[in-house]
C-alpha cells in the first residue's frame, strides 16, 4: 500500500508546478537589477587617478596596462576585458578610489580589439538603452516563503 502511495505521490507534487510562474528571465526584454556590490564593468575617474599603477600590478590576469591619455599628464589604466575576470582586486587596491565597478555587463563585441577599453572609454558608462534597445523592464527577484518571483522595479 505504501508502495502505491509512493508511486502516486510524485504526480501530486509535480503537477502543481505546471501552474507555477516560470523562473526564466526574458533577457533582452527584461533585465535583472543587480545588487550594489555587483562587479560589472569598471568606471575610471580620470581626475582621481594618481597613476600609481597598483591596479596593474595586482591584476591576476594581467589585463591592466597603463597608457597615456591625450591632453592629460601621466598614464592611466587600460583594461582588456578579453582577459579580465572581474575579480575586483584592482578596485580594492586603488588607493584613491578612482576605479569603481558598475553593474554594466553587456561587453560583447565583434572584434577582440574592441574589448580593450581605453581610459577614456572606461571613464564613461553608456546608458543601458543604447546597448539594449529592446529592454522593456527591469526586474528583481523576490523571495516569498513558497516560491521565488520576479517583481518589476521599473518599466522603460
Amino acid at each position, binding site marked *: 500500500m505504501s508502495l502505491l502511495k509512493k508511486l502516486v505521490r510524485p504526480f501530486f507534487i509535480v503537477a502543481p508546478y505546471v501552474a507555477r510562474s516560470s523562473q526564466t528571465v526574458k533577457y533582452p526584454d527584461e533585465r535583472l537589477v543587480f545588487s550594489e556590490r555587483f*562587479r560589472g564593468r569598471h568606471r575610471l575617474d580620470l581626475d582621481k587617478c594618481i597613476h600609481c599603477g597598483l591596479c596593474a600590478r595586482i591584476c591576476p590576469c594581467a589585463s591592466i596596462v597603463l597608457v597615456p591619455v591625450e591632453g592629460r599628464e601621466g598614464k592611466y589604466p587600460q583594461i582588456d576585458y578579453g582577459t579580465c*575576470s572581474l575579480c575586483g582586486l584592482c578596485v580594492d587596491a586603488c588607493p584613491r578610489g578612482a576605479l569603481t565597478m558598475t553593474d554594466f555587463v553587456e561587453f560583447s563585441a565583434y572584434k577582440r580589439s574592441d574589448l580593450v577599453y581605453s581610459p577614456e572609454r572606461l571613464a564613461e558608462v553608456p546608458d543601458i538603452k543604447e546597448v539594449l534597445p529592446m529592454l522593456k523592464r527591469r526586474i528583481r527577484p523576490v523571495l516569498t*516563503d513558497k516560491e521565488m518571483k520576479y517583481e518589476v522595479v521599473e518599466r522603460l
Partner: protein
Amino acid sequence: MTEPEIKPEVMRISWGPQHPMSGQTRILIDVDGEIVRRIIADIGFTHRGIEKILENRTFIQGIVPIERMVMADTANIALGYVQAVEEALGIEVPERAKWIRSLICEMGRINSHLYAFGLQVECTGYFPAVFLWTTVDREVLLDLFEKLTGARWSYSFFIPGGVRADLPEGFRDEVKRAVKYLRRRFQDYWDAMVENPLFEMRNRGVGVLSREDAIRLGATGPVLRGSGVDMDVRRDEPYAAYGDLDFKVITEREGDCLARLKVRFHEIEQSLNIMEQIADEIPGGPVRTKVSLFPRSKPGVEALSRVETARGELGVHIFTDGGMKPYRVKINSPTLRNMYVFERLAELDRVLVADLPVILYSIDPWYLDCDR
C-alpha cells in the same frame, strides 16, 4: 593516455568526451553485453596547470586562478588556498571574518550539492525537471552571493587576512528567509524523488563501496561518508568558525549511490542549520586585518591547509622560498581521489552500462578539479 589492450571477449566503448552525460572527460568501458568489466578513466582533458600558474602569481593573485578549479564550489576551494597562505605568512584572521567565511562556505556547499543532486537525478533518466528545480533553488543562493560578494560564481571574496567586505545591511534576515524557503523545497525533493520507488530501484545497491574499500582506495567526501566512514575535516580539524558551530557529520552505511545521495541531502540540511546559526550568532568586530597587497614570505616555510569542500577533502600545500610568489603549490584535489574509486568500482561490484552515469555522478566529479 595510451589505451590499454582490449581483451577479446569484451567490446570497448569510448564514453565521452563528446557525450551528453560524460562531461569533459573520456571514460573507456569494456562491456560484455550489458555488464561493464572494466572502467578506465582518461582524465586530463581540462588540464590547465593551475599548480604551475600559481607558482607564477603572487599570493593574492593566486586566489583568482585557484577559484577556477571548481566553479560551483568556489568558496571552499579559495578558502583552502587562503588559509594555507595565511599559515605560511603568519597572518591572523579576525573572528567575524571567520564566521563570514563559514557562512559563504556553507552556502557554496549547498550550491554544489544541489548541482550534484540534480545531475545524479538526471542521470537516472529523469527528464531534467529536477535538475532545473535545483537550478532554480540555487538561484536563491546565487542572489545571496551577489548581494554579499558582488559576484554570482567566482567571488574572489576571501583574501589573506579576512574577507573583502562586511555583511551588507539586512543580510542576516535574508539568509534566514532563504533557509526557510529552501527547507520547504527540500521536502518536495524528498517526496518526489528520493522516495520515488523507481528512483530507488535505480540507485539502491548500485555501485556498492564497502567501508574497507572506501578507506583503502582513498575515497573522500560524500563517497567516504556514504560508506560509513565518519570523517569530516570540518569537525576533525576545525577551521574558520566550525569549531564554534554545532553540526552533525552525516554518514550512511550502505555505500551505494542512494547512500551518497542521502549524505548530500542530509548535509544540505546541516548546512542550512549552520547558516541559520551563523545568521543568529555572528560576533561583531573587524572583518579584515591589514595585510600588504604584495606580501613577502619567509624562506623555507611550508603550510598544508585542509578544507572540506563539497566533493571532499581539499589539501593545499604551499612551499615558500622568501619571494612574493609561492615556490610550489600542491593541490590535493578530491575528485582525483574519487575518480580512482570510480575506476575500481567495476571490479568491486557488478556494474551495468545503465549504472555507469549514475555511479559517475554519485561520486560528483568535477573534472576541472580533477585535472587542475
